[in-house]
Every structure is written in structure tokens, then in C-alpha cells.
């Protein structure tokens, strides 16, 4: 069964550094998403992406965040200058419609 994959599984970075989290969505899916979950808190929507552009983003998704689909398969989330409060589990998801399929997540730790 096709699945969403994410790399790396765990990323440790220093405050102020840039990180790129990578996702490979399911191949025939059209919608792509990033969510995050800070430890002990709810899963929060960051951004959705369709037809090579952002379709919706939350208040969390400020100028330090960006997304890209650099080729036909990858979907990346870049955080330009990480802050301590960016430490969280980041989930990628993809869908053809309402049903979203999730990757295993990348645990980002900012020190």
C-alpha cells in the first residue's frame, strides 16, 4: 500500500539555523499539508499546498516558513531561522480529497 514518507525521522539543530524537512507524498495525490504537534499540545495545521501554490496557511506559518515542491515527488518545509519554540513533531500529509494520509513525522529539536 502506498504511503507518505518523511525524512529525517529526527533532526537536531541549533537556534537560528535553517532546517529543511522532507516529505514524499503518495504519488497520485494532489493536495499536500504540513502539521505540527508541540509536545503535550494539539496537532496544528500549518499549510496546505495545491497546484504548485499555497492554498491555505495558518497564523503559525509566518515568514520564517516556506514550502516547496521542487520536483514531481518531494514536498519540503523550510524553517529559515529556527527558534526554541519550533521544537515539535512535524507531520506531512497528502490527499486526493478529504481523506488525508500521514507520514510518520519528523521530530525537530531546537537547542
Amino acid at each position, binding site marked *: 500500500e502506498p*504511503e*507518505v514518507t518523511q525524512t529525517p525521522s529526527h533532526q537536531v539543530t541549533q537556534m537560528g539555523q535553517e532546517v529543511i524537512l522532507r516529505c514524499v507524498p503518495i504519488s497520485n495525490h494532489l*493536495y499536500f*499539508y504540513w*502539521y505540527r504537534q508541540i509536545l503535550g*499540545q*494539539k*496537532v*496544528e*495545521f500549518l499549510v*496546505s499546498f*495545491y497546484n504548485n501554490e499555497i*492554498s*491555505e496557511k*495558518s497564523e503559525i506559518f509566518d515568514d520564517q516558513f516556506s514550502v516547496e515542491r521542487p520536483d514531481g515527488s518531494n514536498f519540503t518545509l523550510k524553517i529559515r531561522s529556527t527558534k526554541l519554540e519550533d521544537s515539535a513533531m512535524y*507531520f506531512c500529509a497528502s*490527499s486526493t*480529497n*478529504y*481523506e*488525508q*494520509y*500521514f*507520514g*510518520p*513525522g519528523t521530530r525537530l529539536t531546537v537547542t
Partner: protein
Amino acid sequence: AQSVSQHNHHVILSEAASLELGCNYSYGGTVNLFWYVQYPGQHLQLLLKYFSGDPLVKGIKGFEAEFIKSKFSFNLRKPSVQWSDTAEYFCAVNLPDSNYQLIWGAGTKLIIKP
């Protein structure tokens, strides 16, 4: 703002007990409703979903949920739980006019004692 509430953060049950996890949402219009499960060390997986039609929906692994529009609720049930149901359960909603973003409840950690 739209929100999703899950009433219990932690539930501990013995095997064969019946399960009901509460979920309420705050939105007056049409919604799509989901329950996701995350087993220890695994992905978020879809348990079941409701878009329209019969308000009692059946999902995988013997789970079901009932949509009660008047109560803005979508409670998850299982008549007899197993040790393997130990996981975290998330209720989520998306709004038809929101490009499918999911709004999540806080999750319920379910522990089944063998």
C-alpha cells in the same frame, strides 16, 4: 474560531470493556468528521470518517462512531476493546470551504490493561 474538544485526555480500561470517546466540535455548518489513531511508534492512521448519509459509521478494527448533528458530536465507540487498541485517538474536523485543513482535538490516550 472552529474548535474540536475531546473530553478525556487519558482513559484506562480492561480488556473486553466497552469504549466510548467523546468528541464535540464548534461549527454550525456542514463538516466532515474523522477519527485518527496513532499506535505507539506508528503513523497517524484513519479509523473512520463521516461525510454524509448514515450518521452511524463503521471503521476499521471494530470501531464505529455516531454523528449527532444536534449535539455537534461524533463519539467513537467499540463494544469490546483489546490490549492492541492501546493508542492515542484523535478526533478531527474539516470544513468544506477550508481547502481540507484538519482541525484537531487534543487527543485521548487509551491504555488497555491485559
